[in-house]
């Protein structure tokens, strides 16, 4: 890669946190180059140093803890790292702009949107006040904010998450930069909003010709939007190539594993590939390859010799990799490939499996109080009439975007939140109306696994006591010794050594913690587990481990799962049945294949189309206008009609009745059936 069209070239960039032998080398010798007008992705799992690399380009590494220890950043003929702070300020926001992951916290809450964008115009373009305002409105229009003349005086809290990210983009564009660094720009957003933002970025790039450095962990986004990719692992780039080349023939074992670990439909019934172990801590010195200890293909030499960067040319394109296997002059042993093993069960359970839990017309309304005497003036209709059926040994996925009420529904089923109305029938008893002491006894049958593995365990308790807690509460295991043995057995089942019982949660990684949580739930021998986004806080490779474990346990113990998630690929891999939720109600429900192959509700269709996929065959994204309405004032008629591309007059008048289709699914849409 050479020539004048290189906009940014980074050489041997190193960022270090702390001093001395315990120093964390977050970025440890990174080289890459970005051409004008292209989109370049830095791909990697959390903690690999990708965000730090980006911050280092702008010299925004948090000081004094961190500092750039070496490297060159050649941008348009200047070495940015050699610039003074004063000169650097001319670059930031003007030549290179940056947008961040959390639009919620990245905007100043006490300044209006207009002031914050205007600051850039004033700083870099020196526009006078009136011109600033006009230009700001223009920018807001460009990023697709409706009624920009009104929005300009809004404060950030008055905007939704997607709108905030658009404002961030407008702010980044204000200085007319040549390079936009986008650090996980859509991670905090829902898929439909993500699709909007990605499309916006692509459009801006087409219009202005600026380059984009995209920092992401999402293979799907990379597959759809970028030109070049660099894969980072433990502070280094391990592979770099054009997107097409990388997806066609990934070289580095880590990259290959990463691809294989992404769940999707075709991997149903098979175990997902996983990467064993954890990312090594970056405060240690490496002698060999950083991936060696987790690599199936590693041999002795990998642990002794650090691999050099090797480039090869294919079809005139450079494909670089950091692996001894591809290093010239090194004879690598052959790899015995192990095919993904089948899980024990057949693909689908017989549909006649007995019903475990029936939810009828479940409602959770939170009152809104206002006025002098705190009168109830309205309700948040978080869950507004949900019907579900979960069968023994099967997985029902409850899918929806954030704010649709799916987590509330899950907790209300377990009565962790008091339901307002409806029935939850388990074993002939209505959980929603059971007296507290009877409910307490039944709690062993229904368990829950939470999203955040860091918040779901008491940091002051030993793992053994955590796992044991439910057994003691439910009177399982008579003696302490009996319980101890059971704890050891449970830990083994989830793949942890029995010694783990005497350690504290903070000594475990996110994936291990999630497994401890699973062991804790299993301890009381439940029949049904509500899995509330159990993998969304985990990296892809760790997610795969957890999914494998859940699937394995289902096969062994015949557990029923209510799997709450927003991740369609996980649904495709794991679920038997799917229920799609929109604004407190289920709009479509049925067997997974039917829904994924042929979604009938327009919302389901839009949702599925918005998910970036690894397949290159172009999909057509159904763009949804606007965002999820407030559950306080749901739109009249069908909740979805204001955003629905196929809305009819009747949709605004009446909520559609459920229609049962021949393949067993239920759809609530006027387009279907009527």
């Amino acid at each position, binding site marked *: 890669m050479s020539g004048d069209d290189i906009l940014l070239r980074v050489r041997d960039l190193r960022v270090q946190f702390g001093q001395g032998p315990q120093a964390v080398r977050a970025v440890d010798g990174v080289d890459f180059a970005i051409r004008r007008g292209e989109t370049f992705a830095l791909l990697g799992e959390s903690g690999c140093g990708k965000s730090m690399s980006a911050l280092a380009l702008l010299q925004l590494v948090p000081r*004094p803890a961190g500092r750039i220890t070496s490297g060159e950043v050649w941008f348009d003929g200047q070495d940015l790292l050699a610039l003074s702070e004063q000169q650097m300020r001319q670059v930031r926001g003007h030549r290179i702009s940056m947008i961040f992951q959390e639009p919620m916290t990245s905007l100043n809450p006490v300044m209006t949107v207009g002031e914050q964008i205007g600051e850039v115009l004033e700083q870099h373009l020196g526009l006078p006040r009136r011109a600033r305002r006009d230009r700001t409105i223009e920018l807001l229009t460009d990023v697709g904010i409706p009624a920009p003349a009104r929005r300009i005086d809004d404060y950030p809290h008055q905007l939704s998450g997607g709108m905030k990210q658009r404002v961030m983009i407008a702010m980044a564009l204000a200085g007319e930069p040549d390079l936009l660094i986008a650090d996980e720009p859509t991670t905090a957003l829902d898929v439909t909003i993500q699709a909007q933002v990605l499309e916006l970025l692509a459009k801006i790039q087409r219009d202005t010709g600026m380059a984009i450095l995209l920092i992401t962990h999402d293979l799907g986004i990379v597959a759809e939007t970028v030109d070049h990719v660099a894969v980072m692992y433990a502070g280094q780039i391990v592979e770099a190539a054009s997107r097409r080349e990388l997806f066609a023939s990934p070289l580095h074992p880590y990259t290959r594993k990463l691809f294989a670990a992404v769940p999707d439909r075709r991997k149903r019934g098979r175990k997902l590939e996983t990467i064993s172990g954890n990312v090594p801590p970056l405060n240690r010195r490496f002698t060999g390859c950083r991936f060696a200890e987790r690599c199936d293909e590693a041999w002795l030499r990998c642990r002794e010799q650090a691999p050099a960067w090797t480039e090869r040319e294919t079809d005139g394109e450079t494909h670089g990799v950091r692996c001894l296997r591809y290093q010239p002059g090194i004879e690598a042993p052959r790899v015995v490939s192990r095919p993904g093993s089948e899980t024990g069960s057949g693909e689908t359970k017989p549909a006649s499996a007995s019903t475990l839990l029936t939810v009828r017309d479940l409602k959770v309304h939170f009152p809104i109080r206002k006025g002098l005497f705190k009168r109830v003036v309205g309700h948040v209709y978080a869950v507004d009439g949900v019907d579900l059926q979960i069968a023994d040994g099967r997985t029902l996925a409850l899918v929806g975007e954030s704010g649709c009420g799916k987590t509330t529904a899950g907790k209300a089923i377990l009565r962790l939140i008091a339901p307002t109305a409806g029935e939850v029938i388990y074993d002939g008893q209505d959980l929603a109306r059971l007296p507290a002491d009877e409910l307490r006894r039944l*709690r062993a049958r229904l368990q*829950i696994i939470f999203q*955040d593995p860091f*918040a779901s365990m*008491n940091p002051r308790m030993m793992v053994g006591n*955590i796992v044991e807690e439910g057994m003691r509460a439910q009177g399982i295991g008579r003696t302490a010794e009996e319980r101890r043995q059971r704890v050891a057995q449970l830990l083994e089942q989830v793949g942890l050594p029995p010694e783990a019982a005497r350690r504290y949660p903070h000594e475990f990684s996110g994936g291990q913690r999630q497994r401890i949580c699973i062991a804790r739930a299993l301890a009381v021998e439940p029949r049904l587990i509500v899995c509330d986004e159990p993998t969304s806080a985990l990296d892809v490779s760790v997610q795969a481990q957890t999914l494998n474990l859940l699937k394995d346990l289902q096969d062994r113990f015949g557990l029923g799962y209510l799997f709450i998630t927003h991740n369609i690929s996980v649904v495709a891999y794991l679920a038997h049945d799917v229920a799609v939720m929109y604004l407190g109600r289920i709009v479509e429900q049925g067997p997974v294949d039917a829904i994924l192959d042929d979604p009938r509700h327009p919302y389901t269709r839009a949702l599925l189309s918005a998910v970036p996929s690894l397949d290159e065959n172009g999909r057509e994204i159904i763009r949804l206008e606007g965002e999820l309405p407030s559950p306080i004032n749901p739109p009249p008629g069908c909740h979805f009609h204001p955003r629905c591309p196929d809305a009819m007059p009747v949709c605004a008048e009446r909520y559609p009745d459920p229609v049962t289709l021949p393949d067993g699914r239920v759809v609530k849409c006027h387009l279907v059936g009527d």
Partner: protein
Amino acid sequence: MAKRSRPFWLWPAVTVLILALAWWQLPAQFGVRPVYLWTDRLIFLLLAGALFLGGWIRRREHLRQPWVEVFRQRRAMVALVVLLAFVITGLLDSVHYRKPLPMVDGQQGVQYSVEVVTLLDELLGTLREGTEKTYSAPFAMTQLARETVTLPDGTQSRIRPRLRHGGAHLTDPSQRGRDILASGLAGAAIGVGLTMLVWLLLGAILSRRWQTSWRAALTRIVHGRTEVPWRAILVTAGSLLVLMAMTALWSRHWHVFGTDKVGEDVLYLAIKSIRTGLVIGTLTTLVMLPFAILLGIMAGYFRGWVDDIIQYLYTTLSSIPGVLLIAAAVLSIQVYIANHPDLFETATDRADLRLLALCVILGITSWTNLCRLLRGETFKLREMDYIQAATAFGVGHFTILGRHVLPNVLHIVLIIVVLDFSGLVLAEAVLSYVGVGVDPSTISWGNMINGARLELAREPVVWWSLAAAFVFMFALVLSANLFADAVRDAFDPRLREQSP
């Protein structure tokens, strides 16, 4: 399974047992009559509690970790050494007893003096007994004020009479400077010698832990290549030892901080005030903790009407300006004590109960802050998944409070307790000034300042009482503040300050 080790409470229990035995048996051995004041009992209860807590924390990695961090900070450890010196003084001053009177002929049984003394008084012997008639300056040989005396020849003259104690051993007043210098140097030498001894001892102990030779350990300490900043600790302890030795030697013949209006040694008063300051700083917290913790976490956890009531309680209490509430309560108690003189055996008893009452009142006015903080934190914790998980197992509310909530708010309790300490010591002085502090007969810095501030108008100025109170208070409060800072930084990472 890990090997079964000694239970955490073994050493604390042994220590407490030995102390209790000593407290119970030793007075009889020495023929004195012990006086167990209420504050004494509470102080030793607190000490026992601290010992057990310490033993418990040592065994828990995640509880120990923040403390290890505190112990690695130089500033905190220097402060801790000073604090320890204060605490030891305070503890020695908390062992009260009455000495037997000399036997009179025909007396049945032993009679005891009405004067209650402490172990500290024994150590400070000359300081306590060497009183003068009235004011005298530091290291003075003569009284501050002139007095009309009748000379041996019958004439009267206004002179500054020689002191009974200060410099009484010198016949030639011109020797004063030399004597002070000589005993100062001797004291310094003793202090340095003691420091060396401590160093050698420390080296011996640490060499066993580090498994090095004694000499190697000694050099490691001197070069400061240790995780715990032993060198800084040693330097601080050494400075204290030198200061103490010098003061001790001087006090044999001089009043280092002069004497006050009634001729009492100011240094003695300043040292005796330590106990009062410590009692107020610690017992107040002890009194308020149960309320603050219980009400705070209950309000945050149960919400609803429980929360409403508790909020109402603390809003009401905190709406009254602190000084006024304390004043109102102390005045009431004053009236009560004045009207029920029969309740108290001795004046010491009365002063002690008044001190305890002040602690209780301060506690009642100061629990609201902690309670509010705990309520807020519990509010957040309640939403944590692990508490939901416990609910999903059918664990009872109070088990959840004890097992999941309490351990996760204790760091806040600790931070507040440590931060409040210095504020309470300072408050004592102000309250005594306002007239609602400790009993006028209790020796405290507040009473010292109160008694001395009017004397600034005198000519020449009597500044030494103020100076002594200032030096002692400042040393205690500063070291407490520095230590509190380190504790807060270690236990509340959110507030951790960045260091260069």
